């Protein structure tokens, strides 16, 4: 059965295909391309013999000098940003980074001791979850703390604290 060839070409008949292959192009491919290059002659308008020189150059397989560099300078290509621009684009991680911390007390940012209170912290740290954590801790360890408060030499302050913590969870 005949089969269709590529691009509407002649149909192949599988009964006529040689099992040993064909003879190949025998160098005709390069000759055809050279003839094609000879046909691609640039149009005139240049200097005397300029067209002939270009034709010879194409025939010899050389590259034709492009005129794109003169007509289209590289100004359209966006310039890569300098390192200084990148440094300016980076925001500070938090407002506290811009402040020197050498002279701040260790309790800066908490509500007890020296230094500023929790109002100095960034807004994302202002959400107070201490009460929830406190209650969870107290619930978990209150039995042990009650036993410790019943020890013989337990101080009054510890007993008062255990009483106060019990009131928080009850």
């Amino acid at each position, binding site marked *: 059965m005949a089969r269709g060839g590529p691009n509407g070409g002649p149909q192949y008949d599988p009964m006529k295909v040689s099992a040993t292959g064909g003879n190949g192009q025998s160098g005709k491919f390069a000759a055809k391309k050279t003839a094609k290059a000879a046909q691609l002659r640039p149009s005139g308008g240049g200097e005397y013999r300029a067209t002939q020189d270009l034709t010879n150059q194409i025939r010899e397989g050389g590259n034709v000098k492009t005129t794109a560099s003169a007509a289209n300078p590289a100004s359209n290509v966006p310039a890569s940003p300098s390192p200084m621009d990148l440094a300016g684009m980076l925001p500070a991680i938090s407002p506290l980074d811009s402040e020197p911390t050498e002279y701040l007390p260790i309790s800066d940012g908490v509500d007890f001791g020296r230094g500023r209170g929790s109002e100095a912290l960034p807004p994302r740290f202002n959400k107070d979850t*201490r009460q929830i954590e*406190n209650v969870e801790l107290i619930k978990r360890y209150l039995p042990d703390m009650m036993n410790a408060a019943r020890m013989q*030499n337990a101080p*009054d302050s510890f007993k008062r604290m255990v009483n106060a913590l019990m009131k928080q969870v009850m």
Partner: protein
Amino acid sequence: MENTFFDHLDKFGNSLGYENFGIAFMLSMVPWENPVDRDNFIMEITGQDVKGGTPSNYIPEYLEF
């Protein structure tokens, strides 16, 4: 009870305040080498004297809840 977890908890809880119990609890878990180092740390972060029980105010009676 000296230099034990509950001793640390007593000092940190009373010095930092009951509302900071979570912080006091975590700091009480630090294996302090001796009570002096711990008390110096408390005085450093609070700027005040250490609050809490001392051996002088220990009472032998059990606490009535």
